[in-house]
Each structure stands twice: as structure tokens, then as C-alpha cells.
């Protein structure tokens, strides 16, 4: 209830100002690359500045969106879900290439440090179909900015960051970019980070709740990314190679005395692409090779399991601008997936190909997009997965846009679902989501204040949801027998205020999610019509940043409502609310600039768990020195 009142107050703030002032409509310059997702869908953009202030993708999304992050603890596995769907229903793309493992369909968000990308775009619900099949909840797009070849101010740029924090955490990251003559561009990014993660917690699983230190949680990550691009007339051609290595110990829950588990992840990602436009055609052709290796070791029970996957992904996105009102969209994706795991009898391979065709345009005040994605995955053929979205700018209230979108997307069974021994079920059908949303967007700048808000209702129906359950002889096996209904409400509000040398910005996000089983193998099951486990009904976060000259103070508040952890909703994890605060100082010299930033995480020293019996850090600190040349 308290939370609702906060939201309500924020709306009052917004509405009062809507009536008071007036301003002109902002004109957004037309950018070819950004045409990928029409603004008529719900999206969230996280720019470079936001991206740089956190360590990894999991933390970035936790602090800036209302997608749900399930984290096993600092540096440990983190998965992301949108709108009450599962972690396997979130697609993650790197410059348009889906990185999801063909084995479990998921992504470990703790393995994506922010120095390796510049922007993140979230596509919710039906808009995820633009990025490919499988995004039944949404997709996360990691983007590296293309160089600005017209920038003649400085040919070489150097950035270096060093962070030191609690639990023996040390992070080095750097970037060198060079814009050579004849329009060549080189860029190198490096990262090295380590942490003991030996955080102190109160063990509520033991008599007298003793203070304990987390054991076996050390982490080491390193990697580099190399890009070379060249511009030839209206065309940019180049490659980007990304190597990443992570080695970590896996800590146990508070209830387990002994453990000795480790996990090594290694990724090789090579992307070659060319973008450009000629006459009325814009194009982006990319080819990528993604190789992931995961090794899990458990010395106590003598398990050493190796998993290898290979993806070869080719995209041709060709858009034809029929006239200034209509664009023809055309995206072809030829993808090869291959994986080998100790749990399979043999190596498995398949094609995952799809073809998107559609149109996007505007008619006076109406923006519209309509398209279809046809997919062939192995023996599965789905000719129809349509999506439509409309955005209408009100004639008298031009700051207000009404939006509706709907679409269908399919998620194909993973190799684990199909081939895991024992249990894998090769008769599985693809999961199907029917998604819809309606929202209102308002953006207004008046005088020194800017207000932007977007409020969206969503409704989705997921059928053939793949559920692993024990079958005869207690062997776990997947079936398509579950149906889930997701509905809810998402709201964001941003207020920016500028007065002389003072900048104030406040941003709030709220999500209300109901995600229920509406059909189960047995309808006497107590899980029927109950909220899915690990889906919070309420999620809220807010950030306030006050900047004066070169100094800024930020405050972040993150609320996660209670999450059920048993399907009959008898067990739950209580809600948690965490505050972070940071102080940042810029020091600008002639050619160089420094930034010193001090952050206090979990300011009020809250004890909480994101996953049952996995301790999360109490109050902790981080100091970052950034250097720019």
C-alpha cells in the first residue's frame, strides 16, 4: 500500500506540471540503426553513462529497470526474466547476435561486465520478436557504438578505470580508441577483475544466528575486445572480437557445511559486419561465430562436467524506404547451433533459421509497424508469428502518445529439453506466447524542467510451457503441459530539472506482475491459479541524482516484493529494499580528466536474500578512479 502511495504521488507531480506549462515537441533525428525497434513498442534505453556506473549487466538491469534479476549472490549466477516469464524466455543479443546457450536457452548475466558494451536496450513483450524467436518475455540488446567517422576533434582516446571495494574486490578496465586517417578505426577494451567475495552475514540457519564469513566464493574474470572498422563512402565494414574468461568458486547455501565447487567459463565471440545505405535501401549484414565453454567441478563428489557450444549466426537486415511514409522491413537469419555436453549421448546440431518481413510507417499522427517472422528450427516449422504495433499522438495534447502492440512468439525446446540423458523428451512442442500491451507515453520539456513518463498494461498467455517433472521411476522429464497467464502494469517516470549549475534528475520505475498457472497436468494441483515462484508482484526502484558543477550525489532505492518459492505459495522470501548512495567528483585538466567516485551499497545494512539461503552483502563500499585522455 505504501508503495502505491509513492507511485501515486509521483503521478501527481507529473500531472500538475502537465497543466502548468507548455513546450514544443522534440524532434528526434532519424538514425538508420535505430529503426530496428519502432518506438511504438515498449522499450528501455540505457545509455553509456548509466552503463558505466555499474559492474555488470545484472547490476545495470537491477538498478535501472523492473525486469526481475535472480542472483545467487555477489559475482554468482544471475538470470533475468521479463513480465513473469522464465529466465529461458529472455533473449540476449550482442550487436544483433543472440548469445543464448542452445543447451539451456539461458544467459548468466554476471558474465557480462559493462566495459564491453556502450548501450543496452530492453525490448519488452511483442517487440522481442524483432530480435528473433524465443523472447517470450523480452530481450536485452547489448550494443557497441559505431565510431563517428566525422569526429575530427581527437584521433586517439584513452580511458582507464580502477575500482577497489569491499571483499577484496579489484577491477581494472581500459579502452583505447584510435580514429586513423583514411577513415580507419581501431578500438581495444580490456578488463581484469577479482574478488574474494568473503562477505560477512548472519546465519539464520543456525542456532543463535552466528556471524559467518562466506567461504569458497572467490572470482576472477578477464577479457578483451578488439574492433577494427573502416568507412568507405556510405558503407562501414569491420569486425569485433571478444574474448572472456571467468573462473569462480561456487559458494554453498547457509545450510551446507562443506563444499568444493568451481566453474570456469570461456567465450570466444567474433563478429564481422557491414552497414550502409544506397539509394533507398539501408542494410546491415553480419556474420558471427560464438564459442562457449563451461566446466563445472565438484571435488567432494568427484564430478567434472564439460559443456561446449558453438553458434554460427548470419544476419541480413535490408530495409527499403518506399517513400517518406512507408518502409519495407526484411530480416533474414541463418543460424547454426551445436552443443556437446556430458549429459548428452552425442553432439547435437540444428539450424535455427527465420525470416522477418513487414512494413513500418506513419500516417499523420499514427505510427505503425506490422511484420511477421517465419521460423524453421530443425523439424519445427512455424510460418506465422505476426506482430503489430500502433502509436497515436493525440491531436490536442501532442505530448501524449497512445500505444498498443500485440504479437506471437515461439520458444523452441533447448538441447537439454530434447536430449538430456536421462529424461530428455524429443517430442516437445515449441512454447508459444501471445502477447499484448497498451500504454500511454508523455514527454514534455518546459523551461528548466523535463518530464517523461510511460505507463503500460500488458497481458500475455504462454501455452505449451515446458515443465520438468518427475516421471516414472522418478526420472525428471520435460513436458508441454503448463499454461501460464501473465498480466500487469509497468510505469516509469523521469523528471529532470536544471537551474544554473545545479542539475537534478529523478527516475522511478514500478512494475506490478501477476503470473499464474492456468492449466497444469493435474488440476487438483495446489499450484493452479497461484503466482509462479520467484516472480515478485511488486518491484520498484528510484534514482535521484544531484549535480553541482563537477560534483554529483546519487541515491538509489531498490524494492523487490515478496517472492513465492513453492508452487502452492506456502513458502516465500520476504520483500527487500536496498539503498545505495554515491558521491562523484570530476577533475578536468587541459587534455585529461579524472573522476573519483565513492559508493556505499546497501547503505542501511539490510539483511536479505535474493535466492533462498544465499546471503547477500551487507553494507559495502567501492572507490573508483577514472582517467580519460
Amino acid at each position: 500500500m505504501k508503495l502505491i502511495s509513492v507511485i501515486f504521488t509521483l503521478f501527481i507531480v507529473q500531472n500538475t506540471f502537465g497543466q502548468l506549462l507548455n513546450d514544443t515537441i522534440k524532434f528526434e533525428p532519424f538514425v538508420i540503426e535505430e529503426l530496428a525497434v519502432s518506438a511504438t513498442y515498449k522499450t528501455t534505453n540505457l545509455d553509456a553513462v548509466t552503463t558505466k556506473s555499474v559492474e555488470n549487466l545484472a547490476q545495470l538491469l537491477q538498478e535501472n529497470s523492473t525486469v526481475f534479476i535472480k542472483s545467487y549472490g555477489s559475482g554468482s549466477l544471475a538470470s533475468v526474466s521479463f513480465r513473469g516469464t522464465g529466465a529461458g524466455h529472455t533473449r540476449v543479443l550482442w550487436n544483433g547476435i543472440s548469445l543464448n546457450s542452445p543447451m539451456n536457452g539461458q544467459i548468466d548475466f554476471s558474465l557480462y561486465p559493462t566495459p564491453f558494451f556502450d548501450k543496452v536496450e530492453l525490448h519488452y513483450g511483442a517487440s522481442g520478436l524483432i530480435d528473433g524467436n524465443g523472447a517470450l518475455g523480452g530481450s536485452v540488446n547489448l550494443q557497441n557504438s559505431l565510431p563517428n567517422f566525422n569526429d575530427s576533434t581527437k584521433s586517439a582516446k584513452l580511458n582507464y578505470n580502477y575500482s577497489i571495494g569491499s571483499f577484496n574486490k579489484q577491477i581494472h578496465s581500459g579502452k583505447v580508441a584510435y580514429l586513423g586517417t583514411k577513415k580507419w578505426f581501431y578500438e581495444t577494451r580490456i578488463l581484469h577483475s577479482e574478488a574474494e567475495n568473503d562477505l560477512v552475514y548472519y546465519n539464520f540457519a543456525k542456532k543463535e544466528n552466528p556471524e559467518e564469513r562466506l567461504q569458497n566464493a572467490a572470482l576472477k574474470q578477464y577479457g578483451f575486445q578488439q574492433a577494427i572498422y573502416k568507412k568507405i563512402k556510405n558503407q562501414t565494414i569491420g569486425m569485433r572480437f571478444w574474448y572472456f574468461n571467468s573462473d569462480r568458486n561456487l559458494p554453498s547455501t547457509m545450510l551446507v557445511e562443506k563444499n568444493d565447487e568451481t566453474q570456469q567459463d570461456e567465450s570466444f565471440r567474433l563478429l564481422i559486419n557491414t552497414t550502409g545505405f544506397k539509394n533507398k535501401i539501408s542494410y546491415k549484414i553480419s556474420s558471427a561465430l560464438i564459442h562457449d565453454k563451461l566446466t563445472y567441478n565438484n571435488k567432494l563428489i568427484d564430478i567434472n562436467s564439460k559443456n561446449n557450444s558453438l553458434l554460427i549466426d548470419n544476419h541480413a537486415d535490408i530495409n527499403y524506404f518506399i517513400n517518406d511514409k512507408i518502409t519495407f522491413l526484411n530480416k533474414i537469419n541463418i543460424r547454426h547451433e551445436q552443443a556437446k555436453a556430458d549429459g548428452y549421448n552425442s553432439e547435437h546440431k540444428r539450424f535455427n533459421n527465420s525470416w522477418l518481413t513487414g512494413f513500418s510507417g506513419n500516417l499523420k499522427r499514427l505510427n505503425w509497424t506490422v511484420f511477421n517472422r517465419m521460423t524453421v528450427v530443425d523439424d519445427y516449422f512455424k510460418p506465422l508469428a505476426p506482430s503489430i504495433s500502433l502509436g497515436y499522438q493525440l491531436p490536442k495534447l501532442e505530448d501524449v502518445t497512445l500505444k498498443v502492440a500485440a504479437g506471437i512468439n515461439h520458444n523452441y525446446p533447448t538441447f537439454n529439453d530434447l536430449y538430456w540423458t536421462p529424461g530428455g523428451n524429443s517430442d516437445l512442442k515449441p512454447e508459444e506466447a501471445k502477447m499484448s500491451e497498451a500504454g500511454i507515453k508523455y514527454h514534455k520539456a518546459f523551461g528548466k524542467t523535463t518530464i517523461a513518463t510511460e505507463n503500460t498494461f500488458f497481458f500475455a498467455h504462454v501455452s505449451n510451457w515446458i515443465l520438468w517433472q518427475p516421471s516414472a521411476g522418478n526420472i525428471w522429464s520435460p513436458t508441454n503441459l503448463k499454461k501460464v497467464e501473465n498480466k500487469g502494469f509497468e510505469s516509469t517516470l523521469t523528471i529532470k530539472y536544471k537551474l544554473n549549475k545545479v542539475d537534478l534528475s529523478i527516475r522511478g520505475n514500478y512494475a506490478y506482475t501477476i503470473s499464474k498457472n492456468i492449466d497444469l497436468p493435474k488440476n487438483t494441483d495446489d499450484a493452479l491459479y497461484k503466482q509462479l515462484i520467484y516472480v515478485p508482484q511488486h518491484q520498484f526502484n528510484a534514482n535521484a541524482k544531484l549535480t553541482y558543477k563537477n560534483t554529483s550525489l546519487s541515491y538509489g532505492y531498490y524494492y523487490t516484493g515478496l517472492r513465492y518459492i513453492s508452487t502452492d505459495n506456502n513458502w516465500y522470501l520476504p520483500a527487500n529494499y536496498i539503498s545505495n548512495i554515491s558521491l562523484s567528483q570530476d577533475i578536468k585538466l587541459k587534455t585529461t580528466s579524472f573522476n573519483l567516485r565513492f559508493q556505499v551499497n546497501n547503505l542501511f545494512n539490510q539483511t536479505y536474500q535474493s535466492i533462498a539461503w544465499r546471503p547477500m552483502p551487507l553494507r559495502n563500499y567501492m572507490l573508483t578512479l577514472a582517467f580519460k585522455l
Partner: protein
Amino acid sequence: MSKFTLNIVVGLTLLMFTFSSCKKEKFGPQCKNCEENAIFPSIQNDVIIVNEGNFGFGNATLTLYNSTNRNVHHGIFQQANNYPLGDVAQSAYYFNEKIAVVVNNSNKIEIIDKADFTSIATITGFDSPRYFLPINLSTAYVSNLFSNKINIVNLINNTISGSITTNSNWTEEMLIYNDTAYVCDMSNNKLILINTTNHQIIANISVGIQPNSLVLDKNNNIWILCDGGFNEANAQLIKFNPTLRTIEQTLAFGNINHSPSDLIIDNSKENLYFINNHIFKMNINDTSLPTSNWVSNNGEVFYSLGIHPITQEIYVADAKDFVQNSTISVYKNNQQLSHQFQSGINSGYILFLP
């Protein structure tokens, strides 16, 4: 401007209010139906359901049931001790007014007082404990998964005092008869015989694939149920003569997919019951396996089986989707369902108290 500032201030104040005004702090997983009222010790509280919970979730619980007035108390260990039972409670054993609860993934055994369920001792240091068997008043054996050891526990000071090294990597159910302990060796498909006086292995007898449970009948024969592994071989029910150390009878299950478990015997030591998707009943004098079930599962997932020593009623747990509370069904001797009650998540063991 002033109105704007005011609204911001009001908004932020309310924001601060949200985190400062929360009343009672709760940490970690909470269980709604685990009662907060005190459990009144009663001699009629005669059934304890050991609920495994989910691996890694730490939601193992004990459900207390009174078969006379049918009262159910959930989460009694947490109530009595103010800390959770642990991760994956495997089995329990009643001895000497005490109950030993084997908590597999927490690698510990909680020795609790039968009268009020408070913890008398927590024995730690096991590898992956499965079952507990007292061999006399001062000593007990503990079988283990992922270990070649059977731990010897000193029941006077509640510590591990030694171990017996086996060839096995997974020892399961055990029973004692005269001065010999009979241990199911799941990894080598053997029955391990141990002299309980000097803790020496006497013999390893080959049985069927994966012996998981065993009982002693009134003729002092041991019945061993072997589940056959995952499509490795057909499951078997074996009658073993401990005096002659010979297998007297081997009954093979017809279908390779069958994976029977939970062999139990009634008070007369004449009738065997086990789960093979459904509940089956068989007399010890029968020379073939029962062809039809005694109670059909009707779509339920039968997960554990018990027989009340006095009422002779059969208790069976339905684990449902394994991520919610199980339902215990109580069947009368005439195969009729008597009544049902709810227990915790994955009720894997049913213990009857004298």
C-alpha cells in the same frame, strides 16, 4: 518551481517512509502454514513426516501428526529450535526417547528430544548421510552417498567415532539382525554384512541392480527390493536367508521401466508393501509378484510409504509437482481411503513413534 520542489520533497519523504516503517523483520524463507503456536507434547503425537524440501532451498521440515484427533503441526523443528532443519531431510529413526533426523545436503544428523522436539545434539562431519541405524545403546551406523564410508557414531557424546570402509560409493537402507548389520550397497549391487561387535565387513553378497530398501520378516528372512537402475536391468524382489547367507527366492519385475521403492512390512511381519507407481501388497509366502495393485495412484506421485504399527493403516505421500506441499493419504486395511492431510514439501520418509 515551488510547487515542483514541494512535490519532489513529498515524493522523496514518502520514499524514505517506505523503508523506515516496516514492522517486523523477517529474514530468509518463510513458511505460511508452519504454525507459530507452541506444540503441546502429547503421547498421541505418533507420526512424524520427514519432508525433504528442495535441494538447495533449505525448506526441509518435520510435520507432526496425531492419528487419534488428526491434528497436524507443520515445521515443528523450526518452532522448537528457532532455526531451520536444513537442506534435504532424508530419513529419521526413533531410539531411546530420541529421534535422529538425517539431513543429507547439510551433512548432519539432528538428535532431537521426542518429548518437545528440541535439538539435543547436532552431529556434523558426514559426507552425504542417508540412513541412521543404532546397533546398541551407545553406537549407531550411518550410510552415505558419494562416500565409501559407513560412519560409526558415538551416541554418548554424539560425535563420529570412526568409520567402516566399504567398496561402495552409495550405501542406503540398513537393518540389524542378531550381531550383523545388513547394508544396501546401491553402487555395487550388493548386500554388505557387517559384524556389529568388531565393525568388520563379513561379506558382500550380490543382489539385484540397486538395492534400495530391506525388511526382516517373521521367519527371519530378509527381503531386499532392487530398483533395477535407470533401464539397466529389471527390478527384483529378493528373499535372503541371513543364517545360511543364501538367496532363497528372486522375483523379477516384468517391465524394465519399473522402478519399485519403499519396501515395508506390517506388524505381523507377514505382509510386504512397496511402491511401484501404485501401492502393491504381497504375502511373504507368495511365490510370485502381485499382478494387480493394492491401491492405484490415480495420477498422484507416490513418494513414500509407511504402515502404522497399531492401526495397521497405510500412509502414502503424494509429492505432486515436487515444489509444493505433499498430501498424505491414509488407507485402511480394506484398501479404502480413510482420510488425507497436508504435510511439507517432498514427504520422503514416514516415522511412527511408539
